[in-house]
């Protein structure tokens, strides 16, 4: 199978999905902290924050899905065989793609986890 526009994987592409998790996490923390501090009206609903978190979550998840699927397709297309330990640039690429896929999956789950409190908590209590 031929693939156009292949990603050339390196250490930066490997960590892109957990980095997105990090940005999403910090965003959620900061908007909530900003709205809820100095914590005077704790019973007010914080609908705006929850919508903002939802809006941040969607592209974050989409990026992880995109990176994960792309890595999986490339890894599959070249019939990479585990455990990717041949001394070639191809196997190094397959290894990075496979690891990228795993990290994308982990980051996806972790982002869902992070977004859950916004789904469940309605105010600043």
């Amino acid at each position: 199978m031929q693939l156009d526009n292949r990603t050339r994987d390196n250490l930066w592409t490997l960590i892109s999905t957990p980095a997105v998790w990090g940005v999403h996490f910090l965003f959620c923390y900061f908007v909530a902290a900003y709205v809820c501090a100095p914590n005077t009206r704790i019973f007010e609903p914080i609908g705006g924050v929850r919508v903002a978190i939802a809006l941040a979550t969607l592209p974050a998840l989409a990026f992880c899905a995109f990176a994960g699927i792309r890595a999986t397709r490339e890894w599959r297309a070249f019939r990479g065989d585990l455990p990717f330990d041949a001394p070639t640039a191809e196997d190094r690429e397959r290894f990075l793609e496979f690891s990228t896929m795993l990290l994308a999956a982990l980051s996806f789950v972790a982002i869902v986890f992070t977004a859950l409190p916004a789904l469940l908590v309605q105010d600043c209590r």
Partner: protein
Amino acid sequence: MSQAANAPDVPPASTRDQEDPKVREEQEERLRKVWASPPGWRYWSDTNNTTVGVWYTATSFAFMLFAGVLALMVRTQLSVPENDFLTADLYNQAYTLHGTVMMFLFAVPIFEAVSIILLPQLLGARDLPFPRLSAFGFWCFLIGGIFVCGSIFFGQAPTSGWFMYPPLTTQERFTPGYGADIWLLGLSFIEVASIAAAVELIVGVLKCRPPGMRLNLMPLYAWYILVVATMILFAFPPLIAGDILFELERLFNWPFFDPERGGDPLLWQHLFWIFGHPEVYIIFLPSIALLAMIIPTFAQRPILGYSWIVLAAVGTGFISFGLWVHHMYTTGLPTISLGFFSAASEAVAIPTGVQIFVFLATCLTGRIIYSVPMLFISGALAIFVLGGLTGVMVAIVPFDWQVHDTYFIVAHLHYVIIGGVLFPLVAGLYYYWPILSDRRLSDRLGKIAFWLMIVGFNVGFFPMHYSGMIGMPRRIWTYPANLGLELPNLISTVGAFIFAAGILIIVFDVLRPRGKEPLAKRNIWNAGTLEWVADVPGEDWGIRSVPIVSSRYPIWDQPNFIDDIDKGRFYMPDAEEMKRETMVTSVLDAQPLQCLRGPGPSFVPMCAAFFLGASFIAATFHYWTAMFAALLFCVVTIIHWLWNATSVIPEKEEKDVGRGLSLPIYIAGPHSVSWWAMFITMLGDATAFVGLVFGYIYFFTIHTDFPPPDADGPGLLWPLVSLAFFAASWLLTLVSHRLLRRGRVSAARLLMAAGAATSVAAAAALLWGPWVTDLQPTVHVYPATVWLLAIWTAIHALVGTVMLGYCLARSLAGKLTPKYDIDLANVALYWHFAAGTGLVTVAVIALFPLAN
């Protein structure tokens, strides 16, 4: 070196016949001489990784034993109710120092120490790229460690727990004396050593691998080290930022943590735990990395799920930065915030669990050989899994509210750390001892020690779950009878002493004379990874020739591998010019790039560490003149060090490293190791700066008015003037570098001088703003924060001045030329960061208030 002049002309490596024993003997003699430790008292000037690594490891184990004795004192005090074995004050000192020493002087440094020994061996390198930096780190660690530990003998040790919460610790009326200052300054000093080691190890893993060791063939230990060293780079600087705020409050009464003047004690908790939680993984991952090396050997098969381990290491590295608030569940933060951190705390269990399953699967699919290291590994897994499970429990907010600051937490953290750090380290000690000292540790004593330790540990710590659940708080000096706490505490104390007996047996085994015992066989466990090619007895040169690697387990898979290394059939079989050399390769595929020359033994790193230590110690006791004098000496020593031993112009362009390959000796720019080191150091520096900016934004969020309405500094004019000077210095440096490379040396020198001048102006203008608007840092937290950001940034401008002046001097001395331009290339890189710091500071202190 004088030897270089005397060395006879040796033909290039590619022309030598490695099958001729006489050729090899001559080569070995040269290598041996070049890498030998200096004789006599000059031994202490050595910088070879094998020597420094052993000092480092031995010192951290010594600190562990010291902290262990403190733990036994604590346990003795708690063995019966209303005991008076220790006074309350000494008890406080003992538990504070126990936690502090175990964390900062054992758990973190032991990882650096072991890596300094092992990493070059694992990578088939002769040494790490910056051996003198390792030595500097060690001496900092030793001086700082003795200073912190010694305080208890003068009754001056810190007394407020290893995380030092203000306001208990910031106000003299609660904590008189020097204890808190010793903690802060002593540990800040040791953090310098940790960051130095992190720089060294990251560059080592990325740039010093043997040819052919692509990313997918790297030993898992190297993956873990890469992740952990990067974590140090982002985790330690926030603590340094916190330490700065803390010391400014203690020494000069700047009110960062004082609520009466707008400060907030919670900010310290944030900064501390942004460091503190990743730190748990910083000590855990390298120990688990030892498991990833040991288990394949005793299962006699490659690790199952290599990529999964990489997932686990990288994933944990990231997610561990999203856990810090789970130490702060009871501080009254809104539930939604707690929810985020609870979610991340649960998520981190996924990659952590993956590692355990990978290890179990490797064991199950292999043919396990039972041995002492495997015994300790099985103990480690059992204990760690229990600690991990209680970790998942305390990650749940309502449960944590019940057990926060009780002995349940004490039990949890000891299960995690002793299972996840200490047991793997002991396994590693038994496994790697033959490489360190050419002989084996005793199997019999090892087994006895193991059973004493595992039984003692569980007897000691399991009852703490119970005593915590029924309400025993942490850090109490004593407790009344009839609360049901007598029995669990007595059992815990008995267990602690059994555990200590196990440790003592290991200490005995390590120290007992074994001159008559036979040497261990080479590669005694029949392992597959590179560190085991070391001959017995070992040589100082690291590796006889730098191999071409084509497998994750080259000793198992590459035919004739050890013989080829021994006979010097690979690269760099010789030290023709009598210089210490190692190979630098590319990041992804480890293609050879450079023959890197390293410096030899020197007392300079020790002197630099001594002066730096002296300045920190003088600051502790408020001897300001002595402090600045020591700091000045330190700067002079470091400049002397750099001037003589770095960016040395080689006598020839390229060197034949054997097998028909010639490599350049001098490389500047993004391929050079020092460029990477500068980049990595500045990432850490930028992280500390972000910590300070976080402080400003934090105060902004908790106050309705920040800046307060009556504050009218630092104004707009002077910060903007400073920004213009920052931009000018940055541009001048870049253009100067460009001109130098084009050969226009005089013009480049002129711009360097101009850049040095404008950066002084940038610093002056930045400080003039808050000065001229009369911001008083002791009055309120707003002026204090503005002053702090301005001072931090001004210092960066002044460091930039020194660097440009240094480059100018190098150029005038003929050590910086259009072709050999490492110094200026690195300074240009520095100025990218310094200019960024200037921009952010001005935006925060001058422009941000306008947006309100």
